[in-house]
């Protein structure tokens, strides 16, 4: 039987052991149905998820709900929306009770006296031109001022085919603002300029992502294997999609056979009762889904499949470390 220590040298084995017992159990929460932007291609609004559930306004109900989530075993609350910073009391209710990550468009600065080490992921959809086109304004000029040099914030840089060949300038701007970034790909079913990732473009963007990681290792939080998985949608000959996706809300998961999946994962709507199908919108086509967290989780839940060769296991360790860094389970 292949064992972990027979495949890894001392240093890599130490890295493996630093993450092997983290047992991350995440769930996702729509903190609000409102947003101060209306981005073209936002999965939340384009699939009308903002109208699926009536937002719970009573803070005490949020607090009781979060306590129940904690009892359920959740140890990572991922806050999305709408725009969570429009409801700081709710964000605080999570932050006081659970390890919490907050996604934001960065237009409102989270007061750091109230949230000293809350991990913040700021969305960015490309350069000024793309941002104006897709989001109606250049958010970077505001968000980079709000979070400049913040050690607990990073950019979630969503790449579209329009940005092939243009990513380096963005990476440098983020570096110059004293921040880090994580790259993800826009899925192609969100009605943005009807774009479609061609196989050629995916090969091109993978090489560009690798190049950014190699050239800016202090700024880019990523791994080559993650680039491979997200651009090819394949792992050991298996294809990512509905049959394999680990990020399906557990109580709604009727798949048979059930694939390896995130234990206890639920994406909750803001009424605190409604559950969404998965970590992104129900209208998305699983066969072309490029959700970054779902792809990372796909690797993470398939650990034993990677205990094959030294390189396979190192790939797994790097993806898990990347996730653990992005959600503050281990330091940068």
């Amino acid at each position: 039987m292949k064992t972990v220590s027979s495949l890894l040298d001392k240093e890599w084995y130490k890295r493996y052991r630093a993450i092997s017992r983290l047992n991350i159990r995440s769930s996702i929460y729509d903190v609000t149905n409102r947003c101060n932007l209306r981005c073209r291609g936002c999965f939340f609004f384009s699939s009308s998820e903002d109208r699926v559930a009536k937002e719970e306004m009573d803070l005490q109900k949020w607090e009781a709900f979060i306590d129940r989530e904690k009892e359920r075993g959740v140890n990572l609350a991922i806050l999305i929306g709408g725009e969570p910073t429009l409801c700081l009391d709710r964000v605080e209710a999570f932050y006081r009770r659970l390890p919490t990550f907050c996604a934001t468009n960065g237009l409102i600065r989270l007061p750091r006296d109230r949230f000293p080490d809350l991990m913040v992921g700021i969305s960015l959809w490309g350069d000024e031109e793309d941002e104006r086109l897709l989001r109606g304004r250049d958010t970077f000029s505001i968000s980079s001022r709000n979070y400049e040099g913040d050690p607990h914030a990073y950019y979630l840089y969503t790449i579209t085919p329009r940005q092939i060949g243009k990513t380096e300038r963005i990476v440098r701007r983020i570096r110059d603002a004293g921040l880090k970034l994580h790259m993800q790909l826009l899925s192609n079913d969100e009605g943005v300029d009807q774009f479609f990732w061609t196989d050629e473009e995916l090969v091109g963007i993978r090489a560009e992502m690798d190049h950014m990681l190699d050239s800016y290792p202090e700024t880019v939080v990523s791994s080559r294997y993650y680039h491979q998985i997200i651009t090819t949608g394949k792992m050991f000959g298996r294809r990512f999609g509905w049959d394999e996706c680990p990020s399906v809300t557990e109580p709604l998961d009727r798949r048979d056979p059930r694939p390896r999946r995130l234990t206890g994962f639920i994406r909750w709507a803001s009424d605190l009762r409604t559950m969404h199908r998965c970590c992104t919108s129900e209208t998305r086509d699983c066969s072309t889904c490029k959700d970054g967290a779902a792809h990372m989780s796909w690797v993470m839940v398939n650990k034993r499949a990677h205990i094959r060769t030294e390189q396979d296991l190192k790939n797994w360790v790097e993806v898990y470390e990347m996730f653990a860094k992005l959600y503050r389970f281990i330091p940068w």
Partner: protein
Amino acid sequence: MTETTADITIRIAEIMINELKLEDVTPENFDPDMDLVDEVGIDSMDLATVALVVQDEYGIRIDEDDYPKLTTIRLIAQYVQERM
């Protein structure tokens, strides 16, 4: 006939090999003290799969909060024996 810890250890190893489809190992040569997380690479989902079968077979309940303690086959066998 009462089962000894050694019998239970072998049976747990067998369940683990079958349920997790472990290769190149037999119940007899599976080191009962090998760390399941740090060496075999099992995770909580694997342990839950094994626990389901063990619970059914021995008519006991394995509390999920106890998973972190069940780090070797020998420790699982002892846990089972204490509850039989």
